[in-house]
């Protein structure tokens, strides 16, 4: 349909086709991993092509769009396209999934064909969430994300994986079904399920239906009950993807649907409540991260805190907040993936991620020490890092809504420094507490090949955060309205 629409289709179809290839072709274990990695890198390249084609001056307009009737009698179509901000999240997905696939290839997962097929399927579903421009299609991709995640955690996860998957599914489905109810009502009322054609809704109930799904998936306090188990039991790369990308699908949903597809006054009716949840999550998550007894626990709860912060930025309902939130989504996606992979690396060497068994791992392992240190320092938003840029914009945005929110946010940055430094020193610097912590080599080439590119992305963004922030919403006729707070 539109020029360059093939690229949006390709972003969804390439990994989907790759998944089928992995499942059906009788390739040996290593070959299937290599194929999956090549396809993931192809996805990154495809995204780069899309990035070059998106017109960021029209950031809010759906571009490179493809539309085909799916079931016409209810006005439902396969409608995909990219916007100025969704393209960054697609990129994040492509990069982080490639890292995840690379790590899995290095770590050597069993039942490789099933595993890599599921990873590619997850890529397709997640990209689908970011490009869907039809409510029902969005829901389909949203649910489709859960199917591979369920199996990835449940089959390849740790000893308590069954309980973890059960919680994950029950929590997220409870939220998703409320969203489905909202979608049914919204679509049938409008006579179309198309996001672009539908007029902005003014119903608080529908807003809450969508918000329920996003709040659980993100997760926002108090819907995070599934988080610690899932993040601890999943294989490290899956945990990284869960917290790095899948949670961004929720944040994206808040922005693209709950904020931009609802009337401004409706969103402002609930703004304070959501801001409060975000702020509580931010502080509470940071405190839990500070108290967590293991490396993954710290990263998991810091994820809860960061999603709270992103929510603060989004519900500041102004351009600074939105821009900061989008940048922080990308930042946190990369940071969280890298940190979980580092947790995996540490666990593999020490046999456990529990702090009581770690320590002293910097000795004789300069590469590991450098990577943990750099990632950790970026994660705690040291000035000059891209995370600092994101958090600063978010705080600027939320300051407009009341300085109290900004104070909470700034305070949480201190807490972030506390828990990240605790993580770094517990892994690297304090005296070794177990024999495991002193065994094992420094990072191998395969691990470096996965982690260094992730870190490089973060360093590039640190040098030039405007790469994201000035290429998101653009200058359309809606932007001034956004700057003043919603449409």
């Amino acid at each position: 349909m539109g020029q360059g629409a093939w690229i949006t289709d390709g972003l969804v179809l390439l990994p989907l086709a790759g998944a089928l290839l992995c499942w059906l072709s009788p390739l040996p274990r290593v070959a299937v991993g290599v194929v999956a990695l090549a396809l993931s890198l192809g996805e990154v390249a495809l995204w780069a092509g899309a990035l070059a084609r998106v017109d960021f001056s029209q950031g809010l307009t759906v571009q490179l769009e493809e539309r085909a009737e799916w079931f016409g009698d209810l006005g439902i179509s396969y409608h995909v396209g990219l916007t100025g901000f969704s393209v960054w999240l697609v990129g994040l997905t492509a990069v982080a999934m490639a890292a995840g696939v690379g790590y899995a290839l290095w770590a050597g997962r069993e039942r490789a064909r099933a595993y890599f097929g599921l990873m590619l399927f997850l890529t397709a579903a997640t990209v689908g969430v970011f490009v869907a421009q039809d409510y029902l299609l969005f829901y389909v991709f949203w649910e489709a994300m859960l199917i591979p995640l369920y199996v990835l955690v449940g089959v390849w996860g740790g000893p308590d994986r069954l309980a973890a998957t059960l919680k994950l599914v029950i929590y997220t489905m409870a939220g998703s079904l409320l969203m489905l109810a909202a979608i049914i009502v919204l679509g049938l009322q409008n006579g179309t399920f198309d996001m672009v054609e539908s007029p902005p809704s003014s119903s608080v109930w529908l807003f809450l239906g969508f918000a329920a799904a996003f709040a659980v998936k993100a997760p926002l306090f108090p819907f995070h009950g599934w988080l610690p188990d899932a993040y601890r039991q999943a294989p490290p790369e899956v945990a990284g993807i869960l917290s790095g990308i899948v949670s961004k699908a929720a944040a994206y949903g808040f922005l693209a649907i709950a904020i931009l597809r609802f009337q401004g006054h409706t969103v402002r009716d609930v703004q304070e409540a959501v801001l409060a949840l975000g702020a509580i999550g931010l502080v509470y998550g940071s405190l839990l991260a500070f108290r967590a007894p293991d490396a993954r626990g710290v990263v998991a709860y810091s994820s809860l805190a960061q999603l709270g912060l992103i929510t603060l930025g989004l519900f500041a309902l102004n351009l600074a907040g939105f821009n900061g939130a989008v940048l922080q989504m990308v930042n946190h996606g990369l940071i969280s993936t890298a940190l979980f992979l580092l947790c995996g690396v540490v666990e593999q060497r020490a046999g456990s991620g529990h702090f009581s068994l770690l320590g002293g791992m910097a000795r004789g392992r300069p590469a590991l020490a450098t990577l943990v240190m750099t990632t950790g320092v970026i994660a705690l938003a040291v000035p000059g890092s891209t995370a600092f840029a994101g958090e600063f914009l978010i705080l600027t945005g939320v300051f407009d809504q009341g300085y109290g929110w900004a104070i909470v946010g700034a305070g949480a940055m201190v807490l972030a420094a506390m828990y990240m430094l605790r993580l770094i020193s517990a892994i690297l610097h304090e005296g070794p507490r177990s024999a495991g912590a002193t065994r094992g080599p420094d990072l191998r080439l395969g691990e470096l090949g996965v982690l260094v590119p992730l870190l490089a992305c973060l360093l590039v963004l640190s040098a030039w955060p405007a790469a994201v922030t000035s290429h998101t919403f653009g200058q359309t006729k809606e932007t001034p309205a956004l700057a003043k707070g919603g449409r």
Partner: protein
Amino acid sequence: MAVALATPPVDWLALSPALVLLGASSVALLAAVLLPPARRRPVAATVTALAFAGALACASLLLDRSPRAEPVIAGAVVRDRFGALAAAIVAGAGLLSVGVSYGRRFRKHNAEYYGLLAASAAGMAFLVTADNLMAIFLGLEWLSIALYVLCALDVDLRGSLEAGLKYLIVGGFGSAFLLFGFALVYGATGELGLPAIAEAVSARGLEGDALLVAGLGMVLAGLGFKASAAPFHMWTPDVYEGAPTPVTGFMSAATKTVAVVLAMRLLATAFPAQAELWTWAVAGLVVASLAVGNLAALVQRNLKRMLAYSSVSHAGFLLMGVAANSALGAKALLYYLIPYSAMSIGAFAVVAARERELARPVTLDNVAGLGWERPLHGVALWAFMLGLAGMPLTGGFVGKFYVLSAVYNRGWIWLVIVGLAATAVSLYYYLGVVRAIYMQTPGELGIAPAGGSPPRDLALDAAILLCLAVTVASFFAVEPIIDLAGKASAALPL
């Protein structure tokens, strides 16, 4: 002295699906007597499979050639697309069931099995086109009697006879309710034809007539028995568990299809004046079925029992389409029946395969690791479970979405919420199966792994593959199926 009976002109095409199946049934029964024992099963199965394919072709032809609904054979039968599509679903379900059954060898009565399968399907194909109360009752008894015997056919299986007997007794109850209801309706209106009943009601102002309403209530109860909707579902778990698994699969798909299609036709054609009454009554059945089916399924360990309760809950979802009493509802119902039948037969087919392998009832414990041992069965069962749970990438999602849309348009958002809550509950047991087949290994549960690998059953695998294809394809190709369902539902006065 010869008495000349006035015979009405017969539209043979309208009856063709039933006639083809009936013919195959006779051939299979003859094969059971005339052929040497070793040849009986292959011959009877082949003939029956061909007949199901033929019935499917006839039904498709009928679907194509019946743009307008017209009563034929003195109003006993109506030739329309609604009935034709339902007959096509029944024929497809029968064809799949033959594939599922083929590897199953009974000690005796192998050919009779296929004869009875074809006979009951013939009854179903007749019933979905029946347009007056006598023809409906005839069709219902026709299919039921064949099914009673099918359930009890496996004399080696202890539960089988019990299942047959239970089905017979409870089914007899259901028939009695239905027949008494019919009698009351006839008593109130003096009419047997479905459209004639509606005309008599509006012409003589019988909308609130006590006799008629009592009759309607009994008819609803009778239909509830056949569709295994709660609270008339008590027979379902025992019969589904006891009956030979291929029969269970056939019943869960075809019998339910016929029951809900009949309910839709009967209620919409004969009782439009009482719509306010029966839509609420059906909504009551929906809520009860969703609650009972889903809650009871949560605690089942035996897969067949679990699927039985799941079928009770699906009676609820399917009846939502009836309760909506709208063109969208009928369309949704017809659409939903297609993936539902495929998923249901497919799920029972995988259970049947495992059962043959282990030679004992299939429980959540002894399917552990199935997904890795038998990739096709595992993936298929996974897809069927997701589909029954209404997850995307299966037609089950679209079907559920359509019926929920239909009840929403009826103004019942509360029923949408109930349906979604039921779906949330159902995930626990559907995903429990996925968990068992992929995430638990036999060792983890302390059960010896299944010994040896059974010979490949090509017919069974083909049936499973076909079910999988329908389940997934109905998600992607919604438009053609829903168009067909839309045309078919246009035959009803909605």
